[in-house]
């Protein structure tokens, strides 16, 4: 096993374990902090895949904005540590079955792909993935339409939030 594989297994275990704890922790703030851990694990995955930009954006957007907003929201509510109900619904057996089938199916699908066993080719020193991504996002034969649509959607959400919060006298 290479060092990369060992790190991958450790990080994957951390991410999955934290993800489990998000739904099983009784304290909502603890859930939110475990969520931060899980998201950070995903960011480390991106670093291992040499996608530095995605890793940093993952931390910035998911931890810096979303997790903090969740914690902020929780802090404004009461009785965050007194959730005494059952942790699982009665259908957890079915959920487990579907999850296992889905995981098995995806693994089977990937295993039948020819590049499954191949070692990743090292990127050349001159390859600037950030520049490639930036050009692809704004070039007409790239993703400019999707990019602009997402911008318009976000703008609409922004205006919507303003309209809801508007204090009509």
């Amino acid at each position: 096993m290479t060092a990369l594989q060992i790190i991958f297994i450790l990080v994957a275990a951390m991410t999955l374990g934290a993800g489990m704890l998000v739904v099983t922790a009784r304290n909502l703030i603890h859930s939110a902090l475990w969520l931060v851990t899980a998201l950070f694990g995903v960011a480390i995955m991106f670093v291992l895949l040499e996608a530095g930009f995605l890793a940093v954006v993952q931390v910035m957007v998911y931890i810096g904005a979303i997790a903090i907003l969740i914690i902020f929201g929780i802090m404004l509510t009461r009785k965050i540590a007194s959730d005494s109900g059952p942790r699982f619904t009665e259908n957890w057996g079915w959920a487990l079955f579907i999850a296992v089938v889905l995981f098995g199916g995806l693994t089977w699908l990937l295993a039948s792909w020819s590049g499954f066993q191949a070692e990743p080719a090292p990127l050349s020193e001159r390859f600037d993935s950030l520049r490639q991504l930036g050009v692809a996002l704004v070039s007409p034969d790239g993703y400019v339409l999707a990019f602009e649509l997402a911008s318009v959607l976000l703008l609409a959400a922004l205006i919507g939030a303003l309209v809801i919060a508007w204090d009509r006298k």
Partner: protein
Amino acid sequence: MFDPMNSIAQWLTDLLSGWGLSSGLVIFILTLLGVVVVATFVLVLDIFLVWVERKVVARFQDRLGPNRLGPFGLIQPLADVIKLLIKEDITPSGADRVVYNLAPIMALATVLLLWAVIPFAPTMLGADISVGVLYIVAIGAIGTLGLIMAGWASNNKYALLGALRTVAMTVSYEVPMVVSLLLPVILARSMSLQEIVNRQSIWYIVAAPIAALIFLISAIAELGRAPFDLAEAESEIVAGFHIEYSGMKFGLFYAGELLHAVTMGALFATFFLGGWKGPFVEQVPILGVVYLLAKAMFLYWVIMWVKYSLPRVRIDHMLDFNWKLLTPLALVMVMATALLDKLLIGLAIPAGSLAYTFWMLVMNIFIGWATLSLLRTHARVERMRVGEPKPVARPELSGVKPTGITKV
């Protein structure tokens, strides 16, 4: 070329390879050593900062400051450290123990992480990552998380209030900060900090003075220093998020705050003041460290100057200032700079040349002047509104028929 750090690294590589270690392991050991060296250097600098802070605040307040222990009181921070270490370590009842103990570590560690990408010299830097600017913003977000954890886990109302104020402040001031950081990125055409420094043949504070000012103001807000020290306002919420911390745990918050201030100074120097650039730095790269620290210390002094000169702002003023002035101004600056940049490149004026910088400066002065005149108009309207005679009560709204008042 005198370059001690890389000479040592080269010597160690040869030595370890000579012992028969594999090249991967040698790189790992050298990286680990580099991390230890940078972190230790920064933490030792931090001890010295306690002395600087106490001495400078004393001068601002017309006092002498620490002057008993050692020459100029230089041993004073060591005495402070010993005092903090032997203090009783108190955990409040009802506190969330793990989160409570994790918070001060996060507060200091996130600041240390920032030093990983700051270039010290042309040949000395931790990691030259292509997304350095975004990395800094992301680490800042984790720092905010540490403060929230401290405020929540203390099981104290004042601490929670401080944490809520911290979130309101840091999350909103992150917006103008990120937007103002886009200007050096536009000018340098790169998000790598080393590249930004390399491109600054003319310091970017000349080409983007307004962005520099916005960055400085939002950096002070990120630090939670006066005039933006609402999160720990002593007279209102008795030190806010770190009210329950004692001994070295408080010490970590304190050290983190001081170090964060000088780190922001180093970042400002890197983005706008040419980082390690200075005379003879090409021949003697180690001089870059001196230049960078000198610029960082100057900025640290400016931040202290602001801190000890201005009173605390009210929370609504703080948010108004951010959303109604800094954010729109930063957005306008980004658009204007990007447009002017395209225009100048179209006119065959290369980026970074003297003419390019001159036109950028002219644009900045124009937008600054326009902003100031808008503010002046706003202030005049506001003064008239406040100066108008106000009705003491509105009888028609109270539901009670006014008696003895005749309509005029």
